[in-house]
């Protein structure tokens, strides 16, 4: 079943990437011990193609999540390093003081 790759907000899209990526990754582990399970293979392929589409859409709208997508997110500065890193979202950071 194809899911929509159109999401309204950055947070929603990132959440969807996390959900799809986890499904694909969990299937990766299963396939490592069941490499000839055709049902699992097609499920993995489906999740993987949605994931790639979402990653590309996210990169063009908000910025790159991987090195490969850094070239698909045109900008006049290096977004890869200047956009927030995933551990930066603590409340105290905004208030000042120790991080």
């Amino acid at each position: 079943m194809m899911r929509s790759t159109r999401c309204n907000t950055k947070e929603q899209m990132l959440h969807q990437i996390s959900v799809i990526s986890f499904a694909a990754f969990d299937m990766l582990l299963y396939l490592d011990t069941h490499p000839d399970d055709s049902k699992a293979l097609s499920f993995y392929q489906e999740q993987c193609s949605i994931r790639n589409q979402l990653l590309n859409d996210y990169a063009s709208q908000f910025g790159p999540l991987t090195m490969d997508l850094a070239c698909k997110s045109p900008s006049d500065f290096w977004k890869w390093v200047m956009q927030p890193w995933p551990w930066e979202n603590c409340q105290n950071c905004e208030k000042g003081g120790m991080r």
Partner: protein
Amino acid sequence: MWNYEKRLQFPVNIKTTNAQLAQNIISQFGGPDGELAASMRYLSQRYTMPNRNCMGLLTDIGTEELAHLEMICAIIYQLTCNLSMDEIEKSGFDKYYIDHTLALWPQAAGGIPFNACEFQSKGDPITDLTEDMAAEQKARSTYDNILRLTDDPDVLAPIRFLREREIVHFQRFGEALRIVQDQLDARNFYAFNLSFDTPTSCAVTGETPASCKMQEGCRKMIANTTPEGCQRTTSCDMAEGKSCK
């Protein structure tokens, strides 16, 4: 989050086994200046870095060090493939073989197990980046020492590649240290710790929150902060196009 690429960063194709050499090269897996310590050092230090250049550089170099660890392991694996019991005994590999057979296990050339005490994560960007520069030079020296021990071209090529990467990393860490120093008080770089004393919001609001222990340092940063040159982390987000002030 990490993903694995199923390839070596630089090819390793060793045709002649040499268990004695493997015992020396294993230091770059689990030794004091090895690739495991390098990766763990950078990936541990990155969280408390005061700007995104340093966070990103430590993430990216810490990731590359995992690829170097893989190359070192591939070299050791290929140097010890299909050893006969006679070769194991004569090469002195028997001591390692007793505990690990031919498996990879992080230890120094002298047999000392890998230990997290071989690196620091101090929470002061000047301290941490200076350690990182020293670590790259120590690893470069170790590769120099390895290069003197062999004339096998199959071993020399990947070891030379790894040695060159130490030099590139040293250069990048030097640049990161310069960026950090540019955000400090030039009269006294040690007046405060950018990762601990100085709230990141100082640069944006121009206010001195109660939690800011070094008021002068904050004022200095406000003066230095322009939208073009701003590298503060949470206080200004260049990606969102916000001004720093």
